[in-house]
């Protein structure tokens, strides 16, 4: 290949490498045909460059552009939004690759690569994504350096290394901007639409829905407690939402917002804590029962005591809550809530209705009846299992009279229905129970596998009362977590096991890193900025404090940069041996014996001997030591010290 073609190929190769790396985080997210198309085009383009094939004509490119746009529309039903936009960006890069000729085209591709990096942060801001994107940004910048390089002769700069050094110099400046650039609440053109398929709790519960989650170690949220003291496991009931509408098989959330919030009397000592939750794309927030106060403006407490955020949670969110584990909630029951809490689908689960009425007749009171239902679960052949069999359309009948194997959702569903069947207002509460304490970070990790469902019944003079029927069947589930209740019997996924102490420790360390990352990077907000400014001595920081901190910070960062660059420009520090020899020369020069520019050191020494025989020996010693240091095969370790001492004592 000609030098021009080689040069052109290198430019293309650098750009393609950067672009492929930028596409990395999107590979699994995009419809498979898109990365396949982009990577295919990139590979073809590289071969075409090597072989000198002709690029497709404008007409062909136009047809391809039309085809892929239609393809995106068919795959995503839109060409805007995060998914459609990312897909289009990726495809645009492929189309641009088909018409690359000069450096300008490559720079467009590199800019697209940077936008793809930004898009991957819009999807996920976790440590892994950041760890992938940072080198990608580096590679893309190196590609930009490479494609804009035109010079000949002399050693060309090494793009990756040079760019790395410059990113290092850019880091302080970027850090200052990150810390002090003011964050705004809210957005300019509307909150992003959520398009992520989330695993986690949803607003309905069918039999088996929650047991699917138990295989999922993904973190739902993390909690730091005031005083670093978590409440005991039996109080760790994290309410997310209540499910009130039952169709005989599935429980659903009631949409109505019209109910007022029943009065709650908070008792006992409160628990204060901060929740950092992963995005759910839903409005539910998680709080311990019974929530008393929370970060203002973020959410409201709905009629069923669950917290609802104003908007779907599409990014990591942090909020503060105060809860009272002891409480009396909703002593008065208004009619609309009573009706909702007694709703049952007519004609469904008839055997359960019949059983409930029989048991209620046998029991003295509602409370006794509820106890007898729990006893039923406890004393008869009910099994708590992670892999319950599927249930028929009348799910509660099938569960109570046939399978008798279920997970928390089955018990909560059956119990709530049994309560409603005899006129006791009741509902299913979905949320999380328990959590893993991370001793390294001092916080509680609540995973999807901690998802749980329990019941809440309304009793006169007691109000809404939590009843966890699962605790009747498997009390260790509540006290000691999922692993304890299935010790050795059923397969649990990795993070739930504790057989390897080392792996467990490593897992906790990794989680701690993620938690700190969430706190200090992802959740670095106005509030955190203000606390940083307070640390710096700004009391009650206002916009002036922000401006000043930003200006001073930038000044310092730019100062460091300028100094750093200037230091690199400084000529190389001279060899210490040469410096000592120069001192020797200077001393002779003051006595009128100057070394000529072309005079070799030994010749000079000879001349000194002729002119000043008294200095001859010392001058010779200095010259020989110097020559040994500079040109000798293996200078002795103390030669430099010797030379310096000789020169110091040389007084002509």
């Amino acid at each position, binding site marked *: 290949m000609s030098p021009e073609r080689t040069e052109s190929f290198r430019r293309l190769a650098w750009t393609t490498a950067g672009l492929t790396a930028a596409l990395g985080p999107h590979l699994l997210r995009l419809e498979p045909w898109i990365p396949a198309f982009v990577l295919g085009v990139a590979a073809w383009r590289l071969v075409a460059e090597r072989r000198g094939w002709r690029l497709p004509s404008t007409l062909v490119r136009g047809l391809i552009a039309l085809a892929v746009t239609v393809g995106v529309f068919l795959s995503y039903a839109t060409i805007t939004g995060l998914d459609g936009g990312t897909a289009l960006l990726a495809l645009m890069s492929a189309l641009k690759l088909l018409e690359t000729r000069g450096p300008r085209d490559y720079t467009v591709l590199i800019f697209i690569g*940077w936008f793809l990096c930004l898009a991957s942060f819009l999807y996920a801001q976790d440590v892994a994504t950041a760890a992938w994107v940072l080198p990608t940004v580096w590679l893309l910048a190196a590609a930009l350096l490479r494609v804009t390089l035109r*010079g000949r002769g*002399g050693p060309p*700069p090494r793009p990756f290394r040079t760019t790395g050094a410059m990113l290092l110099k*850019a880091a302080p400046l970027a850090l200052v901007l990150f810390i002090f650039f003011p964050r*705004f609440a809210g957005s300019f053109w509307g909150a992003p639409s959520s398009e992520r398929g989330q695993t986690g709790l949803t607003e309905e519960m069918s039999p088996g829905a929650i047991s699917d989650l138990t295989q999922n170690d993904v973190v739902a949220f993390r909690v730091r407690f005031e005083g670093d003291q978590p409440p005991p496991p039996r109080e760790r009931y994290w309410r997310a939402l209540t499910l009130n509408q039952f169709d005989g098989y599935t429980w659903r959330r009631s949409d109505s917002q019209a109910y007022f919030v029943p009065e709650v009397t908070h008792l006992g000592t409160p628990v204060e804590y901060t929740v950092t939750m992963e995005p759910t794309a839903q409005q539910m927030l998680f709080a311990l029962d019974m929530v008393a106060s929370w970060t203002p403006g973020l959410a409201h407490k709905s009629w069923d005591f669950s917290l609802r955020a104003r908007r779907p949670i599409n*990014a990591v969110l942090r909020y503060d809550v105060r809860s009272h584990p002891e409480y009396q909630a909703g002593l008065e029951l208004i009619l609309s809530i009573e009706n909702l809490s007694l709703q049952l689908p007519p004609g469904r689960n008839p055997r359960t209705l019949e059983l409930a009425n029989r048991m209620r007749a046998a029991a003295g009171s509602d409370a006794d009846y509820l106890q007898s239902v729990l006893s039923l679960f406890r004393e008869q052949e009910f099994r708590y299992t992670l892999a319950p069999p599927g249930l028929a359309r009348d799910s509660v009948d099938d569960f109570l009279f046939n399978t008798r194997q279920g997970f928390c959702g089955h018990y909560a569903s059956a119990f709530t229905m049994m309560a409603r069947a005899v006129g006791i207002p009741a509902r299913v509460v979905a949320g999380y129970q328990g959590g893993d304490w991370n001793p390294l970070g001092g916080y509680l990790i609540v995973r999807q596998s901690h998802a749980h469902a329990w019941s809440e019944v309304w009793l006169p003079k007691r109000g809404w009362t939590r009843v966890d029927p699962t605790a009747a069947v498997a009390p260790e589930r509540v006290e000691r977590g999922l692993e304890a209740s299935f010790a050795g019997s059923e397969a649990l996924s990795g993070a739930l096991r504790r057989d390897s102490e080392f792996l467990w420790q490593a897992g906790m360390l990794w989680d701690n890193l993620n938690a700190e990352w969430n706190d200090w990077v992802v959740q670095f907000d106005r509030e955190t900025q203000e606390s940083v400014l307070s640390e710096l001595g700004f009391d009650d920081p206002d916009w002036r404090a922000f401006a000043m901190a930003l200006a001073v910070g930038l000044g310092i960062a730019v100062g460091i940069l300028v100094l750093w660059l200037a230091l690199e420009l*400084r000529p190389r520090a001279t060899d210490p041996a040469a410096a000592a020899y120069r001192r020797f020369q200077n001393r002779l020069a003051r006595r009128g014996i100057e070394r000529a520019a072309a005079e070799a050191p030994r010749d000079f020494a000879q001349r000194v001997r002729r002119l000043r025989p008294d200095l001859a020996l010392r001058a010779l010693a200095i010259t020989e030591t110097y020559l040994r240091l500079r040109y000798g095969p293996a200078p002795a370790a103390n030669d430099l010290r010797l030379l310096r001492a000789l020169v110091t004592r040389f007084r002509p």
Partner: protein
Amino acid sequence: MHDWIRQRQGPDRDAVTLQRGRIYILPTGLGAAFGVMLVAMLLGSLNYGNNLGLALSFLLAALGVVAMHACHRNLEQLIARPAGTEPSFAGQYAVFRIALANPGRLPRSDLEAAAGATTPPVHVAAAGEAALELRLPTRRRGSLILERVEIATRYPYGLFRAWAVLHPGMTCLVYPCPAANAPPPPRHAGLAGGGAARRGEDDFAGLRNYHPGDPPKHIAWKAYARADELLIKEFSGDAEATPVFDLAEAPGAELEARLAVLARWIVDAHARGLAFGLRLPGEEIPPAPGDAQRARCLAALARFDAPAPDVA
């Protein structure tokens, strides 16, 4: 602007060290596009409340700032020195050489000189040197002055262009463009002094056709009488051997046309390896062969009664 810089810096006849104060910098088109991209990224990240997006925007912005300083520094402390010119014929390209020395331990990349035209960029190693060859088109005979030249760089990333302005005042001679169809030099031409002329008439070499301007005393009258044809007697050791081209004998209406004819004669004679001389009013160059003689004669033509120099 140019005048202001000129006034500020003064002329630069010798080697110039590019100090901070004489380096200017502005973003390029690519730099502006990069800025637009950063603003878009920043707005997007702010809108989505995306801290990592913000971090990405800030990192790239900071990289841009570093690139700006690095671009500026890429010129700093370089030593630029005029390193001669290569004269050209009018209408062709004059070459101005500028030597760049890098005294530091940092290699410099993508350095170019620009004055209307731009040289191909060069890299200069640490403690290394490189020469930039600026090729500028010439219009007419005389000289071309390189009044101002920019030593410029877009390294790294091409986001910024830093440049330093030099006023080297380099002058490049512009020879007259040799006439395309000039008559051959007159045969008697170049009787460089009487002695040479006499020696030339000693050895009769043959006859050739008469050209206007041939001296009447060389006409072969006897042959004319026989054949009714004007022929000229040629002598060996005559014009063939050591012609001295004389402006007075070059045909043409204007001075420029006659100089062009002289240039043609000189170039042809040099190409044939002959010795030649040149006689201009007030200047006489004795005959000699070789490249130096050619350059000397052409330079005399370029300088003769020269028009005001062009300024590149």
